[in-house]
């Protein structure tokens, strides 16, 4: 444990400036869309990652999409139960989001093209603080 982590543990009111700062990113899924080339960058940016344009507009990511690629990790870092299914998702209407699959009984159900939606879940606990963010759940085909 680092010194600042220890101090934060001892503090009567733990706080995380990082997550406070990232609020629009984490919970509101705010990214940017380039007015020149249309590239969607997430989290927000002032300069387009693709073409370098300074003309960026706020863009809220949609919560649904399809699996672009995935893997089934049997050796995740401490704190996660194996296997985890890591995915990169093509969001409906453009943009990508990277994350973990949740609520899947059998990892083999996940394929390229599988429809998924974001759900708010506890991502991690750091120094007594719970951090929430989005994971992906498989969408039942109608």
């Amino acid at each position, binding site marked *: 444990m680092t010194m600042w982590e220890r101090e934060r543990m001892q503090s009567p009111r733990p706080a995380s400036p*990082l997550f406070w700062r*990232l609020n629009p*990113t*984490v919970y509101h899924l705010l990214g940017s869309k380039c007015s020149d080339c249309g590239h969607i*960058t*997430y*989290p927000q940016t002032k300069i387009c*990652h*693709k073409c370098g344009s300074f003309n960026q507009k706020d863009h809220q990511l949609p919560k649904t999409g399809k699996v*672009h*690629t*995935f*893997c*089934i*990790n*049997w*050796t*995740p*870092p*401490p*704190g*996660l139960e194996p*296997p*985890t299914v*890591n995915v*990169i998702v093509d969001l409906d209407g453009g943009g*990508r*989001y*990277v*994350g*973990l699959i949740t609520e899947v009984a059998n*990892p083999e159900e996940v394929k*390229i093209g599988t429809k998924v939606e974001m759900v708010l879940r506890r*991502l*991690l*606990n*750091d120094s007594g603080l719970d951090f929430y*963010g*989005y*994971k992906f759940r498989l969408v039942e085909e109608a």
Partner: protein
Amino acid sequence: MSVRGKVAIIGVGLIPFGELFHKGLESMIQEAFMSCVKSVDKGFDPKDIKAAWFGQWSGGGMIGQGSREGTTLGTVLGLRGIPISRLENGCPTGNDVFRNAVLGVASGAYDVVLALGAEKMRDKPGVESLVAAGGGAGGGILGLHPSWMMGMGGPVLQALYATRQMHELGCTMEDFARVAVKNHHNGVACPYAEYRFEVTVERVLSSPVVCWPLHLLDCCPQTDGAACAIVCRADLAKKYTDKPVYVLGSATGVDYKDMWDKENFIEMPATKFAAKMAMDMAGIKPEDVDLAEVHDCFTNTELLNIEDIGFCKKGEAHKLLKEGYWNREDGHKPINPSGGLKAHGHPIAATGLGQICENFWQLREQIEPVRQVKLKKGIALSHNVGGNGFGVSSVNIIGREP
């Protein structure tokens, strides 16, 4: 600026890679440097070195062994007083350190310089190194993406590519396994390699799944090691050796930092950028290269890189592998005759410089006969790619003629 014809390698030094708990960073550095100095045919006085670049990756935030400055080299090699910088640029650190040294000479600033990379990868247990390098469940919010680092790590990054290679390019897990078979076969004969044993496709596929679709034997090991090279002005090279090897092209390319920005998962544009720049500088085409040391941190990565460097069309590497095209003995273009990262090991900053050592020896034909590749044009290429989203790559091309 082209470097072709301006810079020569006069000596290289490499220590056998492995799990070297009995050796500290400093002693590895000294061993590599001493063998490098002794390797210079007509003798070499270390006082001729006018500048140095030191590669070390594990000092940074990922493993956090503490930042080493240029003072580490200056002190343990007795080179105080000259400019020495430490450089860290992901997995291409070794090849990028070499590039910086080459530029130091090509610019006219220095006559003789040292490029050295060293790494203690095993002083932290594996599960806490490359895997936790992904941040872990309690890890940081690197890249400011809220869930990016959730359960990420080296195998995950490459498995995300491998899944797409199977889907779009028709690769199979057997194809990935064949890369391990080839490279371990090459590594058996290499005295510097960490894992000197043969494997079969069946053995790779029956090894534990680390991250589907990658098995344990699809992954390179985390390794301790050190490697270095001394480069000098091409017109001074004959003072040190009658058989210098010349730098033809040297480049580093960067692509998007993060996985979610990538346009696709069947190529690594960083490799394409670096390879094209280096080949343009050298004035050569991919077919002019006799042999190549290509980044194979995971078996599927080698297939991607072979294609991205331009040795074959996209989607062809695994088919040519099956036909033996990349084999050391009877292949048309041997890839990783040293055993590659797969068998040789991957001490990040030492990896690229180790590749350059191998290419230097191959081009001078001073290698165990069983390992010697048949030379046609006398040109060899070394390549690394890495970073969080595999967005940085370095390529160096060296040859027998300036």
